[in-house]
């Protein structure tokens, strides 16, 4: 399922799957993070509608649910693009020139933390992803790219047909 599929796609059983995940945890508030994980995986991002539904089912205050969802990098509150570049800005990657990578992506695509208007590419940053030996590292759609150069990013963007 593409991560940016509309929330109300026809023949949608995601609601049922999410319900099942919550009932597996007896709708306990302590299971909030697990439930958010499931919701994020099913829908690609956590919409206000989804967060409200989860808050009601787990009997939690909405502000806490949003607080938790906004704390972890794993969760996103906005729909992601078709492809995501996450540039590591940890110390090792920073020293190895990660800022140049962010600059290149921001110049060609969009500001870090946002998605291009055509929904093609999301640019993200992270702090040390634990692959310092590969610095500067970029996570491209879940896979770690090693010793990335701005030219290397150009080639990736060419390949996926980004403007």
């Amino acid at each position: 399922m593409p991560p940016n599929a509309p929330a109300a796609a026809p023949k949608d059983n995601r609601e049922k799957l999410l319900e099942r995940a919550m009932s597996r945890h007896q709708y306990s508030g302590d299971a909030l993070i697990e439930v958010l994980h499931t919701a994020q995986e099913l829908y690609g991002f956590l919409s206000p509608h989804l967060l409200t539904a989860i808050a009601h089912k787990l009997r939690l205050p909405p502000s806490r649910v949003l607080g938790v969802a906004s704390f972890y990098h794993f969760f996103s509150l906005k729909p992601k693009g078709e492809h995501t570049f996450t540039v590591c800005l940890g110390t090792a990657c920073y020293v190895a020139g990660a800022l140049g990578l962010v600059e290149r992506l921001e110049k060609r695509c969009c500001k870090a933390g946002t998605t291009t208007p055509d929904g093609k590419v999301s640019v993200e940053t992270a702090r040390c992803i634990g692959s310092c030996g590969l610095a500067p590292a970029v996570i491209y759609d879940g896979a770690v790219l090693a010793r990335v150069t701005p030219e290397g990013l150009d080639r990736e963007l060419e390949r996926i047909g980004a403007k």
Partner: protein
Amino acid sequence: MSVKTLEIDGKMVTGMAGETIFSVAWEHGIHIPRLCHIGGISDVGACRLCMVEVEGQRKLQAACLTQIEEGMVVRTDTPRLKAHRKLIVELLMAERNHICAVCVANGACELQELARSMGIDHVRLRYRFPVFPVDTSNERFGMDHNRCVLCTRCVRVCDEVEGAHTWDVFGRGAGSRIISDLGEPWGASESCTGCGKCVQVCPTGALFDKGKTVAEMRKDRGFLKYIVTAREKKQWIG
């Protein structure tokens, strides 16, 4: 409950087992600086202003979270602690936009009072001047994020005393901010009962009564002890 004897700043003091260094010190007239602690609600150790030295321990301890022990030797006001506290206050000042001269809480702000008591007349760090909104959507109160120090007193009083849990903390790091419900304007919050407890406990001018202008906002923090004692002990002590 057993009584414990310890030494704080060279003074022999006693407290009940389970009490924190912070509260025993205050009971004995030793006023450890604080920002996130306020009697009547839980402690979270968010501000680190109450850090003290405990003999035999290398790391500094947050007095509001550390329980007293028999024979403990505590120091609350060494040069090292003073330097740390000063830096914390300067960091808080530099992190948002604390322009006391135009603040509703001027003269009644706990952050300002801390800075004054530490002799901070300038901040050695570069101000960040972040852009934060002011939420005036609530009928009676306002929320100016520029003056928030993220102590979370409002979050805890609303959750633990009022029971509404309107507030929580959004995001992480320097970009964190206090939100109501799902991040909608305070005035649109369905959970807020409009009780005003958060406004009273807020140490700065971040939460304020509408209609007050510069230096007019005065807060009543005594109410908290009154209602918490009433609830827990069924005693109404004015």
